[in-house]
């Protein structure tokens, strides 16, 4: 099998260079560019496995790059953007980006995100049945057939909504799911009250999973963006 190809788009040279070095040390191939137009071209011509995209590009808005790219391709996209631009991140995620990182980020974090996406991709290539009906990460076990959840030896009793949220997160484990995405999938509507229900639901879920508030083990909160179930 060919090594995965990763396209890095950032207008800052130093960032591109250290990303390239870090990505190549993982055994992936890497190409890079500093603007949106050539990013779209390279994405079409080289068909990379993952696109790492900085939202602040000199020639066009990163969100537009995502929208244009989504018209022709389903390449997974990881966004990089400065903190404080939460709305932009949500816009990018809703436009079809798969994950995001806040600048300045640590390289191991980016590599972890890349691994998550590659793993998800690998699953998609094979027929669904192969995917186990049992999801496990650390001590958390979700048996989707029996609709039961265990933490180690102990079974956890969840309400239907809590279970649905947990399964939703598990299906995209490692990836951030926006509040909007979750509420739409669980409650269906987009009533403002859903945010409240979601917060309470997550709070209860965290308590049932016995999360340490200073160091959550399973569910990571991304303030202003959404939630993520850890992957490794």
């Amino acid at each position, binding site marked *: 099998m060919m090594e995965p190809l990763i396209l890095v788009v950032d207008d800052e040279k130093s960032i591109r260079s250290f990303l390239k070095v870090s990505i190549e040390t993982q055994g992936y191939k890497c190409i890079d560019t500093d603007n949106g137009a050539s990013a779209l071209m390279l994405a079409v011509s080289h068909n990379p496995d993952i696109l790492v995209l900085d939202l602040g590009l000199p020639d066009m808005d990163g969100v537009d790059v995502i929208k244009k790219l989504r018209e022709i391709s389903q390449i997974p996209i990881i966004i990089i953007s400065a903190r404080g631009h939460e709305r932009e991140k949500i816009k990018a995620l809703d436009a079809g980006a798969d994950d995001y990182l806040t600048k300045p980020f640590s390289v191991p974090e980016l590599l972890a995100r890349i691994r998550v996406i590659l793993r998800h991709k690998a699953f998609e290539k094979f027929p669904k049945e192969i995917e186990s009906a049992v999801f496990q990460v650390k001590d958390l076990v979700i048996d989707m057939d029996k609709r039961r959840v265990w933490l180690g030896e102990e079974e956890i009793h969840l309400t239907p909504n809590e279970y649905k949220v947990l399964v939703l997160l598990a299906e995209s484990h490692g990836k951030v799911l926006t509040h909007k995405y979750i509420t739409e999938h669980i409650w269906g509507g987009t009533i403002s009250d859903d945010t409240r229900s979601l*917060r309470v639901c*997550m709070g209860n879920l965290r308590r049932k999973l016995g999360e340490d508030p*200073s160091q959550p083990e399973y569910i990571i909160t991304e303030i202003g963006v959404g939630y993520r179930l850890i992957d490794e």
Partner: protein
Amino acid sequence: MSEEDNDIKFFKLSKSKMGVQKGGFYKKILIMVLIMFVCTMVSMLSYYIVMFESNIVMIYLLGILMISYLAESYLYSLYASVVAVLLYNFFFTEPFYTFKVNDPNYLLTFFVMFIVGFITSMLTIRVNLERQLVEDREEYISALYDIEKKLLNVKSREELASVSAGEIARYFGENVVVRFFGSEGEQIHSHIEGADVFGSAADHSACMEAYESGNPCGRGTPLFSTARAYYRPIFNQYGVQGVIGISVSKGNELLQAQYSFMDVIIPQIAVVLQREKNYEKQQKAQMEIQKERLRADMLRSVSHDFRTPLAGVMGLSSTALDNYDKMSDEVRKKFLQSIYEDANWLNEMVENILQTTRFEEGRVNLNIAEEAAEEIITEAVTHVKKHANKHKILVKIPDEIILIRADGVLIRQVIVNLLNNAVSYSPEGSEIIVFLHREGDRAVFEVKDNGPGIANAELSHVFERYYRSGTSGAVKSKGMGLGLSLCKSIVEAHNGEITVRNNVPHGTIVSFYLLSDKESI
């Protein structure tokens, strides 16, 4: 009394004079009849006892004088003189009790008596009037002086408006409006004394016309005469600064003296207004200077704060470059670790500076959403833990899920700053506790450390911009004066409050609260 005299007394109208003027007719007739009756009685008495005629004329002359003195009117002194002559003729010249005269000598007596009576009474009245004129002038001048003194003592434009409106209203007995305008023609202050009768369209137009043309408008002038009030511009060498409107409740226009009163008083108002404007300008300039100084302080503080970690990064990396081959892997790794930590610190600082400038420029849009307080804490703690692995950071949250309406990213920044401060100012290996609880409708956040704490004298200063605690010599010089002041700005923008106190036995507790719905769960 003549029209002119009446005018000068305009500011006394509310007092007693008017009543005397109006109800005076019967009273004066009564006075005249009474005095003439007394005169006649006395004359009769003296006539029948001593039979001395010339005294009688004197008595009547005295009567005329008294009447003119009391009635203060030429007309009445004329009446009195005529009546006196007739009475004298009727009662005391032969044939008695008729207006006939036997002795033609008496005709001269009558004539002289009439002339003397009339002239002396006229003189009396004149003296009386002059005295009153002097008195009125004095009162007028002292009133002006009084107003001027009050005007000079005002402390602000608002006070100037209310004092001038109040004084004019008091002396005129009318409703008064004072409006001041800014340089762009916008109304900057308005004060109404008495009832607001200045609201009609005609009044509004008259006022604006007076402002724009610089001429009096409204009632009693050719322009907008349907208005209920008279408007006069207040101007100085820089143009029209405001307008004074005075309601006209009696007659169709104000009295002449009222106009002249305004001629004197309005320039005074203009002068004081200009003084206030100059003062405000000066004040503004002072504030600009202050702001500029603050900005300079910030730059100085920021560059100082930047230099420390930058020096670290530069020193470590240049040493590593120069001695790369001579360094062991372990040392290299340590160097890189230090560079990473310094860069991280720089990043946190940049974050704070960005947020602070956004707050200073007033262009922060709070991105308010329903957030779970514990999620924000967890995010902040995990963020700080990445580089502060030498401290034990504990989080205590209640069983209840506390929801707050807040900008999650900013509140996270507050907690990150508080934690970073706690990390900087407490020894390695010590415990830092983040404590969340509910107090009524408040979600209270506390960050406690057990470092050396803050001296009591400094407690009140820690939220000041660019302030840096000087007590803790043990810690790195990574002070961040902006951090706490930004926290304060953010918390206050959420209608919350942030306070700092000392922990027992030592250390610092910074606590802040945000509002939370009681029935959130």
